[in-house]
């Protein structure tokens, strides 16, 4: 480097005026000292943009024998500058260019001063990178993953060297130990990594020590000044010789992450942890209580094909039974749309093509496990080659089912059990998430996985915070390692520093505070900003749900799914038993409306005591009121029980899956008969579920015979779009915000007017994007899962109904659900419907 020529500086910006002003500002610091600062900014005086050719020319003008440092604003400035380097003909000149990630205004000022002072280009670039430190220190904010800051303290009065002995270098814990050692002393201590040249950094800062990148065998220089300089150096060297008092912990330090670095960017793994389920958790990595499952395909001798095939059938049956139980449990505890995920798994297990393929392979002489994995691998490959990324992700469902059956074939338990803490696994099946003990599992960290996977959907519904795509290095974290994570941002900290713990604790408290506020307000009516009252009711599937609904401030129960009384038993419940359960449900929310839906089952979930012929397509078959009218005995009993309850409680009765007025009239006649049998005409209101598009289209003919209607958006969406929710191939179509579905909701609301109440009891009622549209269309009652009541009420309080009406009208004219979602997001972020 020629010592006397100052380093040149180039400013690349979208705006010519911005670059010019920044250069003028920097010029004030130079007192006339010669520093070449060139600008390549804007396409012309007034057009924002960057031009790679002009940047190249600017670099060439500024690039003297000492080289040049380039500062850029964002986006195309960076890309164009990289392209400009490529366009430079002289490789030697290119070598002398450093692109700096520093902010242009602050960076330019300190870089100019450094260049004027004779610093070489690396020093100038380093100065630029630390340009924000002054401001950050002044404001008391330090950036978690701030730039490598080089600091020069006072001249050291004591200097020594040590070699890093630990296998895994000066990682978070030993670094913390070192910082603690130094902080107690009256000395300013700096560290330099002599092996890499990194530093000097102040030894009393954990985040700075971390950026030394000190690995096993690196030589570190300790420099100290101040009263206790000598002691400081001696203590640090002694500590290093004791390997920073690290316990012998083989494997523990495999993840070389710095504390305070949003982390686990492990070596050779460019993955970034991604947010999947919100929630802040500070806990230890959980340990696996069950034996490690062997997912390998055993090299067993195939033997008799018949035996092998029977093994496949038995394993598939095992898994099917497990999944069916899980589906019911998920439906009960979490929600029916989450439960529908398992329908896809069950469908795959029952897929005759797949099973035929497996059988053929068994007959060819393969073992059960080998035949199963080979056949499923082919299905998996088909899915993973679909260009649509959403559908491609459903390949994970195939893999999940394949793995579960393989486990069954290997005689392994269906799921793992964990000690309390954060479960860290490579990937997880939806079934495993559904089966996790939510009380013990504080959070989930996946090395791989995706935020839009079914596993993530279930984790969200169960309220388990989750970070995905954290990279395989997390798998090496031993049980007991302290971790902190924010599932809402995707941040994951291993061995978090006290500062990080404090920050996340504050964040967790803020989240809890929000939830507490929502809960505190939950008992109040949900009133929009312009004064319209929206009833927020709960969907329940048990008496326990009703208790949750009451404590979460539900204005009533908008849907009792009475099926829970009828499933999983050998004979139907007696009238007396039903009456007691119905009473109990009403008692949980005394004085509030409770809407009982009569038994809603079909060929997809047959009752053992109500055998029905197999149907080609149960969703278009004899289900809901169709089945009830066909086999009237069950409905008679249920209506009798409901009428008895109605003598004491304010209840409503609602019939599911109604398609024709005749069905409704027949059911009403049965209700009248039941009322007589129960001894009088109780005051109960009668309504129908609008799930069949035809019912929405001819709603006028139903209205004279009902007191209310409740739109079941799940089924209405499925039938309107001819897309089954549980079928991953068409799941993307299944969105209640499709304008086709909204047109039907609109029609029902318009015809009902003020004479008949319109409620929505599908998943969309708790979808924050759908709520403004639904209330804008005229829906005045939303029935949601008990847990969602406080949040839905909070959403309504932010809405302006007048704006919602405008949004809803526009939504009706759009092309698809994607456009509607975009519209609502735009409107709500632009301060439209919400503040």
């Amino acid at each position, binding site marked *: 480097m020629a010592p006397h020529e100052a380093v040149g500086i180039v400013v690349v910006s*979208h705006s010519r005026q911005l670059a010019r002003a920044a250069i003028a500002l920097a010029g004030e610091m130079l007192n006339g000292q010669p520093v070449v600062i060139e600008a390549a900014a804007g*396409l012309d005086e007034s*057009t*924002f*943009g*960057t*031009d*790679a*050719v*002009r940047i190249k020319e600017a670099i060439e003008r500024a690039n003297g024998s000492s080289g040049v440092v380039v500062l850029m604003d964002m*986006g*195309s400035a960076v*890309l*164009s500058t*990289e*392209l400009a380097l490529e366009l430079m003909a002289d490789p030697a000149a290119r070598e002398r260019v450093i692109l700096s990630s520093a902010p242009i205004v602050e960076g330019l000022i300190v870089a100019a001063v450094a260049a004027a002072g004779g610093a070489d280009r690396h020093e100038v670039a380093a100065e630029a990178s630390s340009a924000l430190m002054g401001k950050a220190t002044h404001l008391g904010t330090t950036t978690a993953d701030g730039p490598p800051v080089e600091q020069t303290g006072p001249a050291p009065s004591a200097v020594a060297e040590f070699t890093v002995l630990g296998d895994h270098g000066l990682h978070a814990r030993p670094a913390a130990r070192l910082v603690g050692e130094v902080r107690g002393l009256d000395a300013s201590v700096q560290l330099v990594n002599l092996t890499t040249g990194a530093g000097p950094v102040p030894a009393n800062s954990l985040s700075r020590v971390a950026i030394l990148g000190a690995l096993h065998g690196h030589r570190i220089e300790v420099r100290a000044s101040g009263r206790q300089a000598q002691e400081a150096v001696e203590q640090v060297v002694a500590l290093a010789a004791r390997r920073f008092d690290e316990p012998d912990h083989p494997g523990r330090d495999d993840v070389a992450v710095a504390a305070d670095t949003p982390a686990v960017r492990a070596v050779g793994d460019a993955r970034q942890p991604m947010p999947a389920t919100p929630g802040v958790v500070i806990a230890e990595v959980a340990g696996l209580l069950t034996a490690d499952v062997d997912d390998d395909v055993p090299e067993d001798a195939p033997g008799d094909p018949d035996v092998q095939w029977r093994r496949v059938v038995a394993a598939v049956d095992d898994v099917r039974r497990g999944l069916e139980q899980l589906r019911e449990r998920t439906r009960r505890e979490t929600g029916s749309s989450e439960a529908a995920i398992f329908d896809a798994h069950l469908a795959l297990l029952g897929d005759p093509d797949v099973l035929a393929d497996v059988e053929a392979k068994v007959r060819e002489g393969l073992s059960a496990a080998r035949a199963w994995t080979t056949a499923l691998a082919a299905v998996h490959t088909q899915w993973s080659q679909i*260009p*649509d*990324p*959403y559908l491609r992700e459903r390949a994970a469902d195939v893999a999940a089912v394949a793995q579960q059956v393989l486990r069954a074939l290997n005689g392994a338990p269906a799921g793992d059990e964990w000690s309390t803490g954060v479960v860290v696994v490579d990937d997880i099946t939806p079934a495993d998430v559904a089966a996790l003990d939510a009380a013990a599992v504080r959070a989930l960290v996946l090395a791989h996985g995706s935020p839009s996977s079914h596993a993530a959907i279930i984790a969200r519904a169960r309220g388990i915070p989750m970070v995905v795509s954290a990279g395989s290095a997390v798998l090496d974290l031993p049980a007991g390692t302290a971790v902190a994570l924010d599932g809402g941002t995707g941040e994951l900290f291993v061995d978090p520093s006290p500062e990080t713990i404090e920050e996340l604790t504050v964040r967790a408290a803020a989240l809890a505070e929000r939830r507490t506020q929502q809960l505190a307000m939950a008992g109040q009516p949900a009133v929009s900003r312009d004064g319209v009252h929206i009833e927020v009711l709960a969907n329940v599937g048990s008496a326990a749900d009703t208790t949750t609904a009451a404590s979460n401030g539900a204005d009533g129960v908008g849907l009792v799914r009475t099926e829970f009384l009828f499933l999983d038993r050998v004979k139907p419940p007696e009238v007396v038993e039903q009456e007691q359960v119905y009473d109990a449900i009403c008692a949980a929310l005394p004085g509030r409306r409770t809407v009982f839906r009569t038994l809603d089952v079909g060929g997809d979930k047959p009752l053992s005591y109500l055998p029905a012929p197999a149907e080609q397509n149960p969703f278009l078959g004899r289900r809901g009121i169709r089945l009830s009218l066909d086999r009237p005995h069950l409905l008679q009993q249920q209506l009798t029980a409901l009428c008895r309850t109605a003598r004491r409680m304010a209840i409503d009765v609602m019939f599911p899956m109604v398609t024709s007025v005749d069905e409704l009239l027949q059911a009403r006649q049965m209700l009248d008969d039941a009322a007589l049998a129960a001894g009088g005409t109780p005051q109960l209101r009668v309504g129908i579920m609008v799930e069949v598009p035809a019912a929405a289209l001819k709603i006028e003919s139903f209205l004279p015979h009902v007191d209310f209607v409740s739109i079941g958006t799940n089924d209405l969406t499925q039938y309107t779009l001819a897309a089954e929710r549980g079928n991953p191939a068409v799941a*993307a179509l299944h969105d209640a915000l499709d304008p086709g579905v909204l047109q039907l909701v609109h029609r029902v609301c318009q015809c009902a007017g003020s004479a008949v109440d319109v409620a929505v009891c599908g998943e969309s009622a708790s979808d924050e994007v759908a709520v403004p549209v639904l209330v804008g269309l005229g829906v005045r009652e939303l029935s949601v899962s008990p847990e969602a009541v406080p949040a839905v009420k909070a959403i309504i309080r932010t809405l302006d109904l007048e704006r919602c009406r405008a949004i809803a009208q526009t939504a009706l004219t759009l092309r698809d659900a*994607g*456009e509607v*979602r*975009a519209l609502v*997001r*735009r409107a709500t*972020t632009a301060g439209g419907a919400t503040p």
Partner: protein
Amino acid sequence: MSENLSAAAMAQWVRQFATLIAQNREHLTELDAAIGDADHGANMDRGMSAVVKALDDAQPTAAGAVLTGVGMTLISTVGGASGPLFGTLFLRMGTALGDAGEVPSQELGTALRAGLEGVVARGKAELGDKTMVDALAPAADALDAALAEGLPLADAVARASEAAATGRDCTTPMLARKGRASYLGERSVGHQDPGATSVALLLEAASELGR
């Protein structure tokens, strides 16, 4: 397009692309307004108008040189991130075609692949990041596959165009991970990516000439 790629054919392609960009200028700007800074249509139109003007002034005689010239014009006139990205695409395609006046049609696959690699290296985007790569990569794959099957160039380009259009449509549900759209996070979902839309127009231009 004939089975040999001539400078004239390349120029025709580029001019057709310019026409489509001009026709879709407002549409592209609308798409960008949803998730970016509402300048993609105007920027691309400014760049492609300059390209057409440069071709009017002097059209190179080598197929590769036409594309290289387009690249150089774009990097100086587009302004936004599309400048270096589309500039790199054309520069790499032009370089891949070499100096010959005409090159065999097979080379178009090689050129598009080289362009794709340049764009990926420049923008550091991966498939699924909701960028122009999501249209460009499937187009390059489809073109390679069709040419390998021995399809005539016109049919191969038509397939590439379909693949680009599908790729473009697939950007709508994606979460943006690059560029200004990524600042929107979840809010970027539900919008078609403008860059991918322009790539689809580029392939559509080629496909129209093939018909």
